[in-house]
């Protein structure tokens, strides 16, 4: 099985880089000839250019802190199909779900299993290279959490981040 670990984020937007750092560490922990690592700062369709051809994709992203989302936590994300099945507000992208559906229709190999994780960080509206000590300390634990979820717990379930 060909697996892609994709770190999503911008490494010059402070803690937005955390998804990339965690993805890289997870990749280094697994290191197998069937496991690949990519990082990118892209949306919708351009992400799909990267993930086509893999059997399984683990996307690790960041998300802004809010009332419901606790700083430093890592969440497995489920997007409702309906919530991003439409689009076209966007400046230039279109939704991941649409990308998946389109690519399936065109006969490309779509990953059967896509998991999406998001690490809660501080507000992401400034450029910089600062990562707080709290997040730095959490990174090894988060790597372990995702590893367990994907490669230990996954044996007992067939969960996917995309509700299809």
């Amino acid at each position, binding site marked *: 099985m060909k697996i892609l670990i994709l770190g999503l984020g911008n490494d010059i937007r402070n803690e937005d880089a955390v998804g990339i750092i965690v993805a890289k560490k997870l990749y280094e922990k697994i290191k197998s000839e069937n496991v690949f690592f990519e990082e990118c700062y892209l*949306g919708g369709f351009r992400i799909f250019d990267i993930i086509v051809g893999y059997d399984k994709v683990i996307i690790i992203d960041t998300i802004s802190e809010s009332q419901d989302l606790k700083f430093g936590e890592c969440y497995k994300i489920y997007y409702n199909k309906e919530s991003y099945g439409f*689009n076209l507000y966007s400046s230039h992208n279109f939704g991941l779900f649409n990308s998946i559906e389109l690519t399936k229709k065109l006969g490309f190999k779509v990953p059967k299993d896509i998991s999406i994780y998001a690490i809660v960080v501080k507000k992401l509206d400034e450029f910089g290279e600062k990562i707080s000590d709290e997040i730095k300390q959490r990174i090894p634990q988060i790597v372990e959490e995702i590893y367990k979820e994907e490669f230990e717990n996954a044996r007992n379930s067939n969960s996917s981040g995309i509700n299809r």
Partner: protein
Amino acid sequence: MKKITIDPITRLEGHGRIEIFLNDNGDVENAYLQVPEFRGFEKFCVGRHVEELPRITPKICGVCPEAHHLASTKACDAVFGVEPPEAAKKIREMFYCAHMIHSHIAHFYVLAGPDFIVGPEAKVEERNILGVIQKVGLQIASEVIKHRAYAQEIQAMIAGRATLPVCGLPGGISKPLTEEERKQIEEKAKSCVEFAKFTVKAFENVVLKNKEYLNIVLSKDLYYMESYYMGLVDKNNCVNFYDGDIRVVDPYGKEVAKFKPAEYLDYIGEHVESWSYLKFPYLKKVGWKGFVDGKDSGIYRVAPLARLNVADGMATPLAQQEYEKMYKTFGQKPVHHTLAFHWARVIELLYAAERMLEIVQDKSIVTENVRNIPTKTPSEGVGVVEAPRGTLFHHYKTDEHGIVKEANLIVATGNNYAAMCMSVKKAAQGFIKKGKVTEGLLNMVEMAFRAYDPCLACATHSLPGQMPLIVNIRNKDGEIIETLRRD
């Protein structure tokens, strides 16, 4: 492991926001478009070595990193006072044509296509790429994907990787092109020309031959603005994406300025409004007169239609034919119809493909001589390219060691910000009368947005890939009387 189901808005830092203010009669007095914007990029550049910037600045944006890479590389050429060899300039331009092809295909088929192919009146859940496929069939959709991929592969071949390129260096590029690579690009370029021809034809069949759609494009009500236009032109005053002088024409098509990139501060000012982090560029010599069009207002527009409006023609034969057809249809130049941006964009797609083929068939690009090593003391430089969404300026000042002391960027979409606000106001005026909001306001605003193909950084890093929007309609006292939202 905690698990949650979230809406796209949770990922983003906020909504795009439109505030509409009504007057005593309940008609639209003002409308403001606000977008979430990341701050501090210019400051982030200060203190770094200028040679790093072509690799850092593409990270401003997940949509057009290639444009930032080349504008930054050209600014570095200027900072070091070094001229790249001819072959390096041609390879950079070829890389950039591939980027234009990639971007314009995505915009026409994926973003604009739903409006025209599925239809402006169709339900929002059908107005997307899947709806387009339903109409055009799988074979054409496969061609769309194939040629987008070709453009991506060409960029990767030249630039080291398809996105976040690393090929540009002060004085040239990092690696020469092999004959084998040249041949591969030539085959792909030929195919891109054929596909661009098909796309122009498709636009003609789907939009121009449909009276209802053509009337929307030609309408002077909602999508019409008599502004100035700006764009790069070559020595023959033809459209060029990579290099040349910046030409400005007035609302009557008369050239009012033609200047070198380094002179941009003499011509462009930036107006600040308290309600937006984004600034509003305007023509200094005309002046900022508020959100109004016409000859006395310094608001100008950029991007495909503007580029064609400022040029005397296209530098390749097939694109030139289409250029002539467009102006003949409108019977005027410049064309002020905002939805004509879509038409101009497909003409540019054809030009980009033809130009890419022209360059790749020039065998002089296969040479080891692709870089002149800088020898002068670095100081100051400006680099300009035409991003898919308009003129992009990078301006750096350094100390004698090349450490950046100041950086100023005018991003492509920023140039059109004032015009986009005005388009939103017009759409609002058309759909709100005497305090009553007609259904369809959001769709009409969306269509105005899409014509400009705006690249708002906020929308690029979300998995859903869409910019949610809130429209607040306020009465004369500023109280919200209705809120429309698209999450």
